[in-house]
C-alpha cells in the first residue's frame, strides 16, 4: 500500500504543476495588467511602474512562477494582506456554513435514498423522487433569492444577509444559508444514492440474506448500507476540499465574508495572488483527498487492495 501511496503522490506532482501553469498562463495571457485596475482614472507610465513594483508584478515571470510553486505567494493586491492570513480569517467562516450543510445534506440524502429505495414503486418513492427532481430543476440562484425574500424579507424568521463574529451571532446569520444550501443540494444526492441502493437491493447477497431470514431492516442497514459506502465515499470525500473554499454563489448572495466570496471578488478585481493561492491549495488538497479515498476503499471493502 505504501508503494501505491508514494506512486500516487509522485504522479500528483506533474498534475499540480500543470494546474499552476495553466492558471498562471491564464492570468498572464488573458487577464490585463493589474496595475491598470488599481491606477484609477488618471494614469501615467511612472505611476503604473510604481504600482507594479508595489504589487510585485515587475519581477520576471519565471520568478513569480517559482515563488508560487514554492508557496511564496505575494500579498493580496486588494487587501494588501498575506494570503495565508486571508485563509485563516475567511476559511473558518466558510467552514461554519459548509460543514453543517454538508453533514445534514449527506445524512438526509442517505436516509431518504435508503427509505425510498426500500419502498420502490410506492407513492412515497414517486413523491420523494418528484420533489428531488423539482429541487434539482430550480436554479440555485432563484432558490437563494427566494429564500431571502420569503424567510428574510417577508416572514423575518432569519436575517436577510450578513455576518457577525461570535458563535451564536454567526449561527444567527448562517442558519438560512445552511438550510437553503441543504435544500438546494439534497435532491441530486437522493436520486444518485437511490439508484445505487436499488442496484444493491437486487444483488444476490441481499436475496440470500433475505432467504436466510435476516430481518428487512438489518438487510438494509447492515448488508446494503455497507456496500453502498464505496460510491458514497467516492462522492463525498472529493468534495471535502471544496468545503473550505465555500460556496461561491451562496456566500456572494448572503454576503458571507468567506473564501467563496473572496474567490469571486478576487477574480473580478484581478487579484492574482489570491486566485493562484486558492487554485493551488484547493488542487493540492483535492489530490491528497483522492489518494485518501483510495485508502478508505480498503477499509470499507476488504476485497480492495492497493498495489
Amino acid at each position, binding site marked *: 500500500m505504501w508503494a501505491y501511496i508514494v506512486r500516487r503522490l509522485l504522479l500528483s506532482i506533474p498534475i499540480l504543476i500543470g494546474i499552476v501553469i495553466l492558471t498562471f498562463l491564464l492570468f498572464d495571457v488573458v487577464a*490585463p495588467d493589474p496595475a491598470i*485596475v*488599481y491606477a484609477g482614472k488618471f494614469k501615467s507610465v511612472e505611476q*503604473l511602474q*510604481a504600482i507594479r513594483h508595489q504589487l510585485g508584478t515587475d519581477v520576471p515571470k519565471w520568478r513569480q512562477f517559482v515563488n508560487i510553486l514554492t508557496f511564496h505567494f505575494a500579498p493580496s493586491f486588494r487587501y494588501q494582506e498575506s494570503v495565508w492570513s486571508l485563509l485563516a480569517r475567511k476559511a473558518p467562516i466558510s467552514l461554519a456554513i459548509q460543514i453543517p450543510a454538508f453533514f*445534514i445534506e449527506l445524512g438526509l440524502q442517505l436516509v431518504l435514498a435508503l427509505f425510498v429505495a426500500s419502498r420502490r414503486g410506492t407513492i412515497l418513492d414517486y413523491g420523494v423522487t418528484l420533489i428531488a427532481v423539482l429541487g434539482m430543476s430550480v436554479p440555485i440562484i432563484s432558490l437563494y433569492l427566494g429564500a431571502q425574500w420569503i424567510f428574510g424579507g417577508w416572514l423575518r424568521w432569519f436575517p436577510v444577509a450578513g455576518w457577525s463574529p461570535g458563535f*451564536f451571532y454567526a449561527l444567527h446569520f448562517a442558519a438560512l444559508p445552511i438550510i437553503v444550501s441543504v435544500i438546494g443540494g439534497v435532491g441530486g444526492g437522493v436520486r444518485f444514492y437511490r439508484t445505487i441502493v436499488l442496484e444493491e437491493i437486487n444483488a444476490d447477497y441481499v436475496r440470500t440474506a433475505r432467504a436466510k431470514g435476516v430481518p428487512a431492516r438489518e438487510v438494509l442497514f447492515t448488508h446494503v448500507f455497507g456496500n453502498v459506502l464505496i460510491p458514497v465515499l467516492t462522492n463525498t470525500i472529493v468534495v471535502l476540499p471544496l468545503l473550505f473554499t465555500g460556496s461561491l454563489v451562496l456566500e*456572494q448572495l448572503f*454576503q458571507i465574508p468567506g473564501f467563496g*466570496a473572496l474567490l469571486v471578488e478576487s477574480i473580478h478585481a484581478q487579484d492574482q495572488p489570491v486566485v493562484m493561492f486558492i487554485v493551488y491549495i484547493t488542487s493540492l488538497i483535492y489530490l491528497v483527498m483522492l489518494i485518501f479515498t483510495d485508502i478508505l476503499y480498503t477499509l470499507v471493502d476488504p476485497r480492495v487492495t492497493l498495489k
Partner: protein
Amino acid sequence: MRKTKWIFFFYLAVVGLFIVGVAFSLSFTPARDPYTLYTEHPGTIRTLDPAEAADQPAALILGELYECLYNYKYGVTPYELFPELAADMPVYSDGGRVMTIRLRKGIRFYDPEHKVFPSGVGPAITAKDVIYSFKRVCDANLSGVNYSTVFEDRIVGIEDWWNYTKTLPDSKLDWDRPVKGFQILDDHTIRLVMPQPNPQMIYNLAASWTSIVSRDAVNYWKQDFRLHPVATGAYYLKENLPDQRIVMEANPIYRGRPDVDGDADVPESQRLPHIKRMEYDYFTETLPPWILFTQGLFDAAVIPKESFNEAIQLQSGQLSEDLVKKGVILIKSPLPITEYIGFNMQDPILGKNLPLRQAMSMAFDRESYIKNFWNGRGLPAIGPIPPGFPTYDPKQVNPYTQFNLVAAREKMKQAEKINGGPIPPLHILMRDSDTLERQVAENLALQMNQIGLNVQPEYRDFARWNEMVDNRQTQLFDAGWVADYPDEQDFFQLFYGKNAPAMGVNSAAYVNPAFDKLYDRAAVLQGGPQRRRLYLQMGKIVMNDCPWLLVFYPTSYALHYDWLSGLRSMDYGYALRQYLSLDVALRRKRLEGR
C-alpha cells in the same frame, strides 16, 4: 446493525443540536442602538491611508475621518469651497503660479487607540504635517496611485522628489528634503509653487487623497497605518471588520464645526456631528440592502434596478404609496456624469469620417434608451457637460443628438462617399458582459442597423476594457465620465490633444488644434465670464466633431426615511454625514408593529 443504528442516532442528534442551536441563535439578533445611523457601504476598504486610496468606497469613509485644507459648503449649489484646515482661501501670486495658504490653529489629531498618543490627543496640525502629507501622495513606495491625479506636472520639483522616493524605502527617506514647489513659510503657512497657473489645484486640495495625516502615526503603525487612522475629522474609526462592517463614532475632541479654529467656542446646540455613531454594512449585492431598507433597518438606500417598479410609480415617476406611508422620502438629483460611446479617432474608418460619426449620433434614440434601460432615470445628453455645471443649458440644441433617421441616412451617404464604399462592420467594446450590458449593446446594434450599419459588440471585463481603451485598441467603446470637481475643465481635458496618446485620459484620441488652443487659454484662467465663453466655444466644437456619441446624463434616485433629516445631494465633498440628524422617537414610532 447496531453500529449503523448508532451512527444514525448520532446523525439525528447532530441535526437536532443544529435545530436547537438555530432556534437559540435567533434570539441573538445583533443589538441595534437607537442613536446610530445604519446604512450600507458599497465595497471592501482596501486601505484607509489617504495617499494610497484611490477608490470611491474608501473615499466615502476617509471623508468622515480625515480633513483636507478645503471642503465644499454643505448643500450649497453651485458648489462653493470653504477653508477647512486652511484658515482662508489661498492667496495667488506670480500670475497664479503660487498659492499661499494659511492654516487654522489648534486642530489636533485624535488617536482612538491611544497608541501613538497615550492620552489620545495628538499635537496640533502644522505646516510640516501638510507638506508631509502632500509628499506622501508623491511617494513611489506607496505606489503613488494619486500622484498623477493630484501633483504630477503640477508642482515645481515634484518629479525630483518622486524619483528620489524610488531610490530608498520609506523608512530611509528624508522627509525634510526640500521640494521647490512645497514650501513651509512658518508653522501655519505653506506655499505651493506650480510650473503654470492651475485654477483646478484648489479642488485637489479638497479631495480626500490630500487629507492631512499625522507623521507620528505613520511612523508608529508603518505598514498598518492604512488600518489605523489618526485624524482630525468629525468621526473616528471605532471598528473595522473587513468585508462585514465599519463603525464610526463622533470624535470627542472635534472642534464642533469644520470651518472654525481648533479653540473656537461652538455652542453645544450647534456642535457637529449630530449623529454620534454610524454603522456601515458592506454589501456587494443590491437585493439584501434593499430588503433591509424596506424593513426600516437601514435609514437610507439607493434603489436597485430590479426593485425600481416596487419603489417608483411608473406613470408619475413619484415614490410608491406604500413607501410614502412608511415615511420614505425620495431625492432625485442629476449626477455630474456623462455616459457616452467613444469613437477611436485613430481608427482609419471612424477618425476621418465626420458624417459617419454624426450619422451614428443622430440614429441613436436616447429617449427610448433611457426609458427602457434606466427606468427613465436620466436626461438625454446634449453636450459633453452634464447638468450642474454653469455652461450646461437644457435648452441648448445639438442637431447631432436629436433622433433623426432621415438626416442620419443622408449623412450616411456622405460617409460612404468618404469611405469609398459601404462602411464595413464596426466593433464596439463593452465594459462588462452582464445582461444589461448585452442588452444595451444589442439595442445599439439594432439602432445602427436602421442606417445600414453593422455594429458588432465585444464584451470584456472592466480591467481588460480599461487596458484596451487606454491603448486605443478599440473602434467604439461604451464609457462614462464622473466629474471629479465642479469645473468644466474636468470634462474638456478628455478632448485635449496632449492627453490623446496611449494611457492619456483623452480615450477617444481626439485632436483638434482649434479646441486645444481654446483649452490652453482657459486652463490658466480663474472662473469668470472670459473662461465661460471659452468653455462654451469648446463645447460647440466637441458637439460638432462628435468624438463621442453622447448618450445620457444619469439621475440619482436616493431614498431615506423621514426620521433622518438634513440629507442633501452632494456630488463632491466629504464629511457630509456630520450634518445629518436622527429623530429617534419618530424612528421608534414608525418601526413599531413592523
